[in-house]
Every structure is written in structure tokens, then in C-alpha cells.
């Protein structure tokens, strides 16, 4: 995807994002004994049976595949937490804080560590719901670009995957609006503000959700 498209040059593919997400730390409980691993990204371990330790997701998945550990799902992946987030997400206009890579990490854990997640069906459907609600919010939020003069969008609490999906669309739309909105084309509306210094002319930055 990233190599295929020149127009979307700045876009990651979903697989690339998954790769980046694998650097996040997660807690595992090993069932084997091993010396600490000294890696470029840091030292992990030592690994002792039944003693929890923090490792990157890629390492956790690799160990899990070999049956050398169980993965402890992160705090935010519990049913109570997710239910809270879902409700807050439905009620509030703002996006709820979730881990930047929540889409990717949850998918990785669902794929490789399904026996370590309690209530996996519930958790999975909750995450799906949260994702759908957030996508709907993004969709309605993006309408704001067309209503007012917009030069930048502030995407607070938006996760990597969500930002990545809307990126090609949003950048293109902003570009086109910028071209059509340029002061050369639209004169009468701001003949006054043209005399002001250049900085005053840039307009406010919009929140994706700012009502």
C-alpha cells in the first residue's frame, strides 16, 4: 500500500502499523527459566516461572507461540474498562483516551493469545463497538471541514489506525479546500482581513470535535 500509491505517499499500510504496534510493552508470565535478553531496544527479563515481566508485544507473541508464557491482557482490555469507555464514547462528543495502538494490539492478542483473555467474545465485541462508534464520530466530525474555513485538524486521542485510515482522504480534502478558499479566489468576504498581518489570516485550528 505504501509503495503502491504516490498520492498517498505518507500513508502506512495496516500491516506496517501492526509492526509498529509490536514495540509496545506488555506483561507476560513465563513458564520457563531464561537469562535476561539484552536487545537494542532494551533489556528484558530475567524470565522466571510464574514471575511476571514486561516485554514487547512481538516477543510476547513469539514466546506464546512456542508455549513458553501466558500473556496478561493489558488493563484497558478488561470488560469493565471497555464497557466504561464504550458508554463514555457514546455519550461524549470527545474521543476517549485509549492506547494509541489499541486496534492493532487487540487484534494481535485475539489472534495469538485467545486463551489468555477472559471473556474473549465480550471483549472482542466491545472493542468492535468502540471502534464503530469512533469511526462514526470521525465521519460526522469531518463534515466540519466543509462548513468553515479550515487549515488544520487537531486529532486528540485518535488512535494510529484511525488516523491512518482517514489520512489520505483528509489531506486531499484540505488541499482542495485550501486551493478553492485562497484569498485570490474569495475576495469580497475578507477584503478587510487581508490588510491585517499574515498571521492573523490563518484562521483558527479546528478540533475534529469541538462542539
Amino acid at each position: 500500500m505504501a509503495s503502491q500509491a504516490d498520492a498517498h505517499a505518507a500513508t502506512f499500510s495496516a500491516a506496517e502499523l501492526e509492526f509498529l504496534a509490536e514495540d509496545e510493552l506488555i506483561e507476560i508470565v513465563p513458564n520457563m527459566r531464561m537469562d535476561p535478553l539484552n536487545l537494542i531496544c532494551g533489556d528484558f527479563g530475567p524470565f522466571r516461572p510464574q514471575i511476571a515481566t514486561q516485554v514487547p508485544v512481538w516477543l510476547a507473541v513469539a514466546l506464546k507461540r512456542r508455549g513458553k508464557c501466558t500473556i496478561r491482557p493489558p488493563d484497558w482490555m478488561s470488560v469493565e474498562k471497555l464497557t466504561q469507555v464504550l458508554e463514555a464514547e457514546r455519550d461524549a462528543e470527545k474521543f476517549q483516551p485509549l492506547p494509541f495502538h489499541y486496534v492493532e494490539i487487540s487484534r494481535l492478542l485475539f489472534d495469538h493469545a485467545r486463551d489468555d483473555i477472559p471473556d474473549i467474545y465480550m471483549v472482542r465485541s466491545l472493542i468492535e463497538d468502540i471502534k464503530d462508534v469512533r469511526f462514526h464520530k470521525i465521519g460526522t466530525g469531518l463534515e466540519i471541514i466543509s462548513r468553515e474555513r479550515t487549515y488544520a485538524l487537531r486529532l486528540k486521542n485518535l488512535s494510529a489506525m484511525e488516523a491512518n485510515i482517514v489520512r489520505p482522504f483528509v489531506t486531499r480534502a484540505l488541499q482542495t479546500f485550501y486551493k478553492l478558499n485562497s484569498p485570490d479566489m474569495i475576495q469580497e468576504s475578507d477584503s478587510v482581513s487581508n490588510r491585517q498581518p499574515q498571521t492573523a489570516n490563518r484562521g483558527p485550528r479546528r478540533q475534529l470535535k469541538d462542539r
Partner: protein
Amino acid sequence: MANYYDIDDVLAEEEILPVVFQQAADCFGLLDSSDDTNEVEAGAKAELPFWLARDLHVRGVVAVDVPPYFRKVSRTRKEIEADAAHVDLRGRCQYFYELGLKIAPLVGDKTIGPFLLVAFQTRYKEVLVRAHTAASAVAPKHLTLLTNEEAKLYEAGQLSTAAFKKWRMGGPRLQRAPVLGRKRKPIE
């Protein structure tokens, strides 16, 4: 000015504009099909591509007239005011916005800018909704109404949504390179 490396910019300048010759010109006969002589009289009407019309206009040889869809009183404007999202702009001019941006300073029509903006604002919403929801097979009818710019926008949204869905569905994570399966044919 024109962007030399942008194919869309080049193609947008190919659009045909109606012009009126202000001076008589020799050797322009092929542009004016109404008579056989190789001359064009002053006041003759012709249709020229934008890139030619612009230069001749700057030199005062021709006066550029705006194409019907940019006129102040035209069906297109009325339709856009009524319901911009369902106007077939592609049929009128594939490079509607690009051309509009280029023509407006040339003919000094200040209403074109706001008109383009309003048109895009309304149509943007429609594209936004469709790009991120509809399955790719459902939308082709809507696609035929979009100008080049809008179609690209639609495609951008559609592609990234589709890529995400594909990733979520899973499937093989490692893909076999298409080169690998091929066997060299024995030379006989």
C-alpha cells in the same frame, strides 16, 4: 501558473473554451471552420483549448468567454444552488475546479471563486459519506457524477477503508511474491 509535472494540471488546460477574435488573424483558418479561407476575421467565434486561449488572451488577440457552466446565469449554477450533490459535473467538465481556478483571474469574474467553493462544500459531504461507508460495488452510479478531483478524493477514502477491512479480516500475513511461483519453461 501551470505545474509542469502534474498530469492533471496539463489535462485541465486541454479543456475547450469559447473565444471571440478581437483582431483579424492570418493562418488561423483551421481554428474557424465556418469558411474556407485561411484567415479569421475580427469578431469571429472559435473554440480553443485553454492553454492557447490564455496566451492569445494575454496578447489581446482573442477575448475569452467563460464556458456555459461558469456563466452567471446558467442552468449549472441553478442546479448547484438547488442540490449540488447530484449535479453531473463530470459530464460538463472533468476538471471543473481546476479550470475554474484558472479562468477566474483571466476573465476577472469574481463570482466564480465562491461558486466553486460552495459547489465543493456541498459535494464534499456526499463524497465523505460514500467514501467511508459504501461497499465499492454499490457506488459506481454516483462515481459518474464526480469530477476528477472528487473522484480522487473518493478513491483515497475508499482505498484506505478497504485496506483496513482486509487487514482486519486476516488471512495470510505473509504473502508469496508473485515471481516465486513461476517456473522457467524448458527451451526446446
